[in-house]
């Protein structure tokens, strides 16, 4: 206990009396923190932009067309498939989901959005936080994501114009905003929700598609009576409903085109930044220990134990790292305040938390070699011998 108290005393005194030097390293750590947190936030933001709607679905299983490789865009189910699924024992609810993308005429510039359709009261339609749900049929009504409202300026009661390519020519449709929902990005775009009939009318279509007015769902979100029975229900659906394949939510998310590759890229960037941090901190403390060899020799010669010397080095590293991560976290927060909502940064995700923990660990890991080196310094170095 006394050794730890002496180690803390030495560490604090050295950091305080050499605060300029240590602050410089803390600032380097702060910059690394800024970079890592931004990468983590960007990763989380991009992931959210891609998967948010799917991961927030109130369902346990997703039904796709057979051989679509659980790719939402590649899947187009028959209209009666949803009825067949609802008849399967253990299915509490099933909601068809129709996906497309389009462009709305916003205040400043056109805004690309994901145009989704779902049935009110069924899985697939997120909760409405303001206003009401659209009417079924070709009601010309839409529920929009808050992000659409923020970026376009549309509010409940407004009429928005949708530009949609119909068989090679651009046509304009008008949808009345009747409700707001939140956190529903899909395919990097904020979403608007309509009824299936409205969706079929306003979605961009090829000339061939125009010949058929029937909306075909891409996928069906399935809510189970017992959410724990995912695997057995998956088998049951496959057995009882023809021409489908079934996946759980995580599998569906990973199959979103580009999702895994994008996350892999961002995570690799984060890991490499952390590695650079380890090297920078390791290098600094190693140089510092090399400069302090005679001084550590004196400390040991006059009776400081290896534990005291080692603990002092570790405490110093922890102090410098914690200050650096603290400054970096603060800087990241300040910078994030100035970023527009179009940049997908999410700081409250688990990846940000993971990044902070990793950043707090890089100091001790980077300084490990120098700590071992310090512990191994012979007290004879205090004398001229050796």
């Amino acid at each position: 206990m006394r050794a730890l108290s002496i180690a803390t005393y030495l560490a604090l005194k050295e950091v305080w009396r050499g605060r300029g030097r240590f602050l410089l390293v803390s600032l380097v750590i702060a910059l690394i923190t800024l970079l890592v947190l931004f990468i983590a936030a960007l990763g989380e933001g991009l992931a959210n932009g891609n998967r948010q709607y799917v991961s927030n679905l109130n369902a346990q299983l997703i039904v796709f067309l057979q051989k679509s490789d659980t790719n939402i865009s590649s899947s187009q189910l028959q209209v009666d498939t949803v009825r067949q699924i609802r008849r399967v024992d253990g299915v509490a609810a099933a909601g068809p989901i129709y996906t497309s993308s389009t462009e709305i005429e916003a205040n400043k510039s056109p805004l690309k959005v994901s145009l989704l359709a779902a049935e009110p009261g069924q899985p697939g339609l997120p909760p409405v936080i303001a206003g009401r749900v659209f009417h079924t049929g070709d009601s010309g009504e839409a529920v929009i994501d808050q992000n659409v409202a923020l970026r376009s300026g549309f509010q409940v009661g407004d009429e928005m114009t949708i530009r949609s390519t119909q068989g090679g020519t651009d046509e304009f449709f008008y949808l009345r905003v009747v409700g707001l929902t939140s956190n529903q990005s899909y395919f990097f775009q904020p979403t608007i929700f309509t009824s299936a009939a409205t969706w079929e009318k306003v979605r961009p279509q090829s000339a061939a598609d125009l010949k058929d007015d029937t909306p075909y769902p891409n996928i069906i979100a399935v809510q189970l009576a017992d959410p724990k029975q995912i695997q057995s229900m998956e088998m049951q659906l496959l057995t009882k409903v023809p021409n489908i394949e079934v996946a759980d939510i995580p599998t569906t998310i990973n199959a979103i085109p580009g999702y895994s590759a994008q996350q892999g890229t961002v995570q690799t960037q984060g890991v490499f930044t952390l590695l650079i941090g380890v090297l920078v901190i390791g290098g600094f403390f190693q140089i510092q220990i090399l400069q302090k060899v005679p001084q550590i020799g004196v400390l040991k010669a006059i009776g400081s134990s290896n534990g005291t010397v080692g603990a002092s080095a570790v405490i110093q590293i922890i102090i410098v790292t914690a200050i650096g991560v603290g400054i970096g976290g603060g800087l990241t927060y300040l910078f994030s305040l100035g970023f527009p909502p179009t940049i997908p940064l999410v700081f409250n995700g688990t990846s940000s938390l993971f990044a902070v923990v990793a950043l707090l660990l890089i100091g001790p890991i980077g300084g490990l070699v120098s700590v071992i080196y310090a512990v191994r310094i012979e007290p004879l170095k205090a004398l001229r011998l050796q």
Partner: protein
Amino acid sequence: MKEIVLEVRDLVKTFILDGAPLNAVDHVSFQVHSGEFVALVGPSGSGKTTLLSILAALLTQSSGEVFIDGQQLSAMGESERVKLRRSRIGFTFQSNNLIPYLTAQENVEFMLRLNGTLGKVNRLRAEELLARLGLEDRLRSLPAQMSGGQQQRVAIARALIHNPAVVLADEPTASLDTERAFQVVQTFAALIHENQRAGIMVTHDLRMCKYVDRVLQMRDGKLVNECKTRIEIEALARGEH
């Protein structure tokens, strides 16, 4: 009769140099009493620093025995040797003597802190000792803000503050000019005598011997001469030996 604080019996330290054994310390025996200040002199390579390192429990001997305050060094484990260095030995070194980020007072108090005896009374003792060494206006100064002589005086205070049995000094005047060197050794000797410690100073500067009680001369690892009388010591200090 003063008690024997340090006893060296037939001490040998052998190094292997180019495949051949070399006795850096070669069958050395002597004793130092409390209140006695001894100089260990000799040319470079004579084995005096090796001997000092063994006495400081920093290096283990090949054979022979060292007793400090009645404790046999060869019977001690590493942690006991660390404890011995902390509690029963005081050090001053040639350079890099002080902890650079502690003030003069903190450097001295550090020995008390290590021994768990830092209290109000001992803090006052540290201040008084530094004042005694003429450093009353330097208590809050960092080593870098002090001259070489002032730093050595702080080191002397640090070496004595915890009441060690033995005080070891390795070339304490090597980085000082002649006048300051004499002042430092004179002060050191006075404190050794006053506090009844056993002091050993390694030096290559024979002029510094005029303040010691006995001089041990080494050559090629052996003790080759011992000057005990004032006349012998002063003659040696004048370079007449």
